[in-house]
């Protein structure tokens, strides 16, 4: 009977192999290839992120290789699923690093970037992560590069936009009392104090169901612009109650408000004319973004979002670095990444600073009839 079980399992394995033949990712490095690693969440609590990541990278590699590859060699990747959990991220990064990779893209979140930080440092291989927590800088890892604007940048851009473009003279800040919200508040306040603009900051807690008190306070202080720095559920509540209580000043919100999961909770009039600071909007009329959106939509049948744009751009950043390094030696690639400058891609213009931050600007979008529309790209470097 053990034999039967063994046969059963063997049959299943063969069936599994046949089933999987359609999507084997990439062969390991051969003479004419340069191998990079990709760790993203293809299963787990957020598989869509991993799938878009992969689609973005696939499209970029297709274009790069169609144009002659990098250093005359084909750029290929080895992809592993990190399930967006710490343990699996550590495992797959260890696995990727046992292969001959020039550099790695991922894992995506700040927590998993932190978990795998030591591995990359010890292996002396550079990695590009989508983690945005300012605390990643504290790790002081010369092999860590961030391919999305840090949370601190979004806050500064919001404050700058409020003062310079909206002409605000007194700003109300509505923030969530968690890590993200207070982090954003501190950055905004620092910017406003330097600019000498008065402000009122009122906090709420995650899970609050009523913000009437906070909103009435902002109204009675006669603020002429509100910056809302909070999570998905709370920004939806803020939008509804600001509308119901008749507050008609312009609002700038953190990135959550342009996500479909938030917009679906709202009536169009609640957020009509709102501004948001975010990484990427596909409706931009900027030539580079428009081209990318068109190519992506042609290939996959839907418009790209944040993950696709981020990692499509990251692949180009990496290809550029390998080209400039003149070899696929990980140390040379790291040094080239650190010298990245003047590269403009759908996600923004890349210039590496001494802390490994590649992007220093983000997009201001305006919501018109529930569609986030590009207003401008604000770069803090310029």
């Amino acid at each position, binding site marked *: 009977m053990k034999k039967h079980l063994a046969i059963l*399992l063997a049959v299943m394995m063969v069936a599994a192999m046949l089933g999987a033949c359609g999507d084997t990712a990439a062969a390991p490095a051969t003479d004419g290839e340069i191998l990079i690693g990709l760790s993203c969440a293809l299963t787990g609590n957020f598989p869509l992120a991993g799938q878009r990541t992969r689609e973005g990278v696939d499209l970029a590699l297709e274009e790069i290789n169609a144009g002659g590859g990098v250093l005359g060699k084909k750029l290929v990747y080895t992809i592993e699923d990190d399930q967006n959990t710490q343990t699996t991220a550590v495992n797959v990064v260890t696995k990727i690093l046992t292969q001959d990779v020039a550099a790695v893209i991922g894992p995506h979140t700040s927590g998993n970037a932190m978990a795998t930080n030591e591995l990359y440092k010890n292996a002396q291989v550079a990695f590009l992560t989508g983690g945005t927590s300012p605390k990643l800088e504290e790790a002081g890892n010369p092999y860590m590069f961030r391919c999305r604007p840090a949370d601190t940048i979004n806050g500064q851009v919001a404050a700058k936009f409020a003062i310079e473009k909206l002409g605000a003279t007194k700003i109300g800040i509505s923030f969530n009392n968690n890590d993200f919200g207070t982090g954003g508040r501190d950055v905004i306040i620092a910017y406003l104090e330097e600019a000498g603009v008065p402000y009122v900051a009122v906090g709420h807690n995650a899970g609050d169901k009523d913000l009437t008190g906070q909103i009435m306070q902002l109204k009675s202080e006669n603020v002429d612009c509100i910056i809302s720095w909070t999570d998905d559920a709370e920004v939806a509540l803020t939008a509804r109650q600001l509308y119901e209580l008749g507050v008609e000043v312009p609002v700038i919100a953190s990135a959550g408000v342009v996500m479909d999961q938030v917009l679906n909770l709202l009536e169009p009039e609640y957020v009509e004319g709102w501004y948001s600071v975010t990484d990427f909007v596909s409706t931009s009329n900027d030539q580079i973004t428009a081209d990318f959106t068109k190519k992506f939509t042609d290939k996959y049948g839907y418009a790209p979002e944040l993950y696709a744009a981020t990692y499509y751009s990251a692949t180009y950043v990496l290809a550029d670095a390998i080209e400039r390094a003149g070899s696929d030696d990980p140390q040379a690639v790291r040094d080239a990444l650190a010298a990245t400058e003047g590269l403009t891609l759908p996600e923004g213009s890349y210039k590496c600073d001494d802390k490994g931050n590649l992007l220093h600007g983000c997009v201001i979008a305006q919501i018109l009839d529930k569609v986030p529309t590009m207003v401008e790209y604000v770069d803090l470097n310029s």
Partner: protein
Amino acid sequence: MKIVKRVLLAVLLAVLIVFPMSYDNAYVHILLSQTLVNIVIVMGLNFITGLTGQMNLGTAGIMALGAYIAALTSTRLGTSPWIGFLLAIVMGVAIGWVLGYPSLRLKGVYLSLTTIGFSEIVRLVLTNWVELTGGTMGVQGVPHINLFGYVLDTSRKVYYLYLVVVILLAFTAWRIVHSKWGRVFKAIRDNVEAVEACGIDIAKLKIQAFTLATVFGCLGGAMYAYLMGYINPTTFTTDLSANYLIMMMLGGIGSVVGNILGATMITLLPEMLRFLGTNYWLYFSIIALLFAIFLPNGLVSLFTKENRLGMFWMAKKEKTGGRR
């Protein structure tokens, strides 16, 4: 028979020692070390859920507290990891008594409920008490274990230490299962009234079983922290608790050997199936399900006489008139 068993055990041990030495691949080493950590936690869970039959769904919370107390004392106070291990054990005893005392005096599903609640509270506190725990960014830079001046800085070195720990703990667990204690635990699971009628204090024994589980759980947590060098609260979700239950059930409920087999299989199989591409998790689930159906007594029943696998093929034989 006994000699055969001993020889097999010696061969297995030799393989476990020689294999990581000869096979130089960090990925394999870290997986094997994780397997050892999981074995410790599953052996603990076996005492309360496997033997005593009280559903504990708070393994993640128990493990988290063990991991955090070890990681925090080592990073904030700079004490040796050995003190971290010791504190994790103390923490285990404390959880066992503080949580076990009120919840195990009740009957029915209350232990499941209180342990789920406990686990979630632990996770939320660890997430939100940013000053102490570092919030969602976790505890970074957990130091390596120092063994009399020899620093265990790779997962291969950690593996050998953990292998010794697991062998000692497995022997302890095996002795407990086959002692008077173990028999009373099983009796509580099978017929609680009869045990009570014998004049045995059931609540006290349940608390003892639970304390064993929490001590093993916290120790496993500390081992995890020192292995990974970084922990954050998002690891310790209810999913993780369920995963440990699956390890125990697939391996063989109540058996130490079963725990070891279950933990090994559930930890290593998904990684071995990675060559299947995007669908590997589906195949893993199918295989796990087949094991649950065909081996209801767990993997361990492949090696014992209580194997019920045969009945599926027996029935077929009768249908064909016994011609086979």
